[in-house]
């Protein structure tokens, strides 16, 4: 067990190294001359050279990568071209809104999607199942910002139940914080709900055909216990896996949701950085999100071994 945990942590290191290498290499993969693009159309040749030097594009690739990774390991993600502030500082300022949005969305999505998938599997083939799955297809097809504007228009503008846009830090009270995040979380959660509900249904359908489920039913265990205790527990691994993988969707969706609802988080930081061609900020955000993603999935993998005694590698 301990050996597995250690081994699993060690296999994450090369993945993280490749993530870093890839994020770093984007500067070289992108078609055209990045220094000229970042400097902008009005830049003088001297400006372009200055940017080129600050990005390190004037030095050999491997030397530059070694220097860069050394600084990243020390927690230095570079300096913003536009604000001249350290990227880590900019990220730290913006992390609370994004973290709040993502955690709330995660909770909301799991609470809605798992029961939805379980019931859809239980009532497979009925109108309940069909409408749940139709909802899932809809969730995959309607882009995040479309959902966002639609919800904001109905619930904020027309019904006036919730604030239209903005963000209140949690330090200023739980309720104001929550009120501002309800619409963004529902918006961001839709595609995630679709994904989790679909996988939950598929896994549950398989589990419900197992002999021990029939045995439980024959013993007279209540339907609720059969579904949520006997079956869902055994279907947990694929469901939790997809929850972890789906966090990539949440990260991508957060960028858009934050622009729709004017939330001053990492997504807005990214969008502002795009408009200012502030590449070090974009690079820092991409690297940070990717590392978080790898770590979350590592944690999920490790949790399995603790929760599910059948898993031994």
């Amino acid at each position, binding site marked *: 067990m301990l050996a597995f945990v250690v081994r699993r942590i060690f296999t994450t290191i090369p993945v993280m190294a490749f993530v870093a290498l890839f994020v770093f290499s984007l500067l070289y993969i992108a078609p055209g001359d990045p220094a000229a693009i970042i400097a902008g159309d009005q830049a003088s040749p001297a400006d372009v050279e200055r940017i080129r030097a600050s990005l390190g594009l004037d030095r050999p690739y491997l030397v530059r990568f070694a220097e860069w990774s050394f600084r990243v390991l020390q927690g230095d993600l570079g300096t913003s071209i536009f604000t001249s502030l350290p990227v880590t500082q900019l990220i730290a300022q913006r992390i609370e809104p994004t973290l709040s949005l993502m955690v709330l969305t995660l909770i909301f999505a799991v609470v809605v999607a798992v029961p939805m998938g379980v019931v859809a599997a239980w009532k497979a083939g009925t109108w309940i199942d069909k409408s749940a799955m139709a909802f899932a*297809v809809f969730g995959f097809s309607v882009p995040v910002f479309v959902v966002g504007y639609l919800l904001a228009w109905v619930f904020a503008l027309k019904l006036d139940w919730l604030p239209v846009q903005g963000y209140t830090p949690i330090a200023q009270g739980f309720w104001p914080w929550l009120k501002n995040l309800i619409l963004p979380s529902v918006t961001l959660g839709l595609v995630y709900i679709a994904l989790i509900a679909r996988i939950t249904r*598929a896994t549950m359908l398989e589990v419900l055909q197992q002999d021990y489920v029939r045995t439980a039913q024959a013993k007279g265990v209540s339907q609720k216990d059969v579904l949520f205790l006997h079956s869902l527990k055994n279907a947990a691994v694929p469901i939790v896996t997809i929850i972890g993988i789906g966090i990539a969707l949440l990260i991508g969706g957060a*960028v858009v949701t934050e*622009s729709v609802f004017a939330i001053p988080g990492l997504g807005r930081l990214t969008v502002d950085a795009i408009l200012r061609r502030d590449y070090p900020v974009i690079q820092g955000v*991409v690297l940070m999100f990717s590392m978080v993603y790898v770590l979350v999935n590592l944690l999920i993998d490790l949790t399995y071994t603790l929760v599910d005694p059948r898993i031994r590698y």
Partner: protein
Amino acid sequence: MTAQPSVAASAAPGAEQAASAPLGSAARFRRYLRRHPSVAIGGGLLVVMALIGIFAPLLGTVDPTAIAPSRRTRVPSELYWFGTDMLGRDIYSRVIYGARVSLLVGFSVAILSSVVGLAIGLFAGFIRWADGVIMRIIDGMMSIPPILLAIALMALTRGSIENVIIAITIAEIPRVARLVRGVVLSLREQPYVEAAVANGARVPRIIWRHILPNTFAPMSVQATYICASAMIVEAILSFIGAGVPPATPSWGNIMAEGRALWQVRPHIILFPAVFLSLTVLAVNLLGDGLRDSLDPRLAKSL
């Protein structure tokens, strides 16, 4: 237009199993569509969107980039069916022409990432020493959320349709490569592949005769999902200002222009949003239908 041959081609294997009596190909195609209504609905809707894009100049549109400040932000009327935007451009014309951008990006990314992903997947599946390295690189790439990867690439290039296509393709390649590698690894153990090896068949022939035909079904399903996701990512990139140039009539661009005015002129966002959602829905339905008909085992569960 582009959708039709692919539907017909992938329809063939499923339809052959279904039809016991000899039927004409048209009759078989009709039967296939009847049995898989989501292919018919999704494919049909997609063909309609493609026709709209192709015949955009004939559908009562004006120049989608023509600016006229005197008639800006009009609400929908008989003259301006979907209203006008902040620069006085006709939104109906922009939305109709926007179908071209969306479909072009969707199909190009689906085709390009399938071809490159197939090559990488075959290579990793067959060359033992390369497999470990390629898979670690793919794991690394897949750890970067696709939208962020596309954003980072777009921040480094000029906004153009070609660059948007390249950026999204790079973000989608690992998914295809991993799928193909999985298929190759499972097929390699099949008795008929071992028999071919024992017969002295060379690797290119094994790939061509035994492996490639079997990757077709999962890849065509994957390609539809990539097409759908590429269209959404294009719209997102344009919406946040990292996509095609602002003057280009793309659904994401129209919505980006409508952002500042969404509380008073929601229709600017509404029309492109409806078109985008319908198109993505069509592609997703087509993908679900193809998956169900190509893999009946999965059809029951997913």
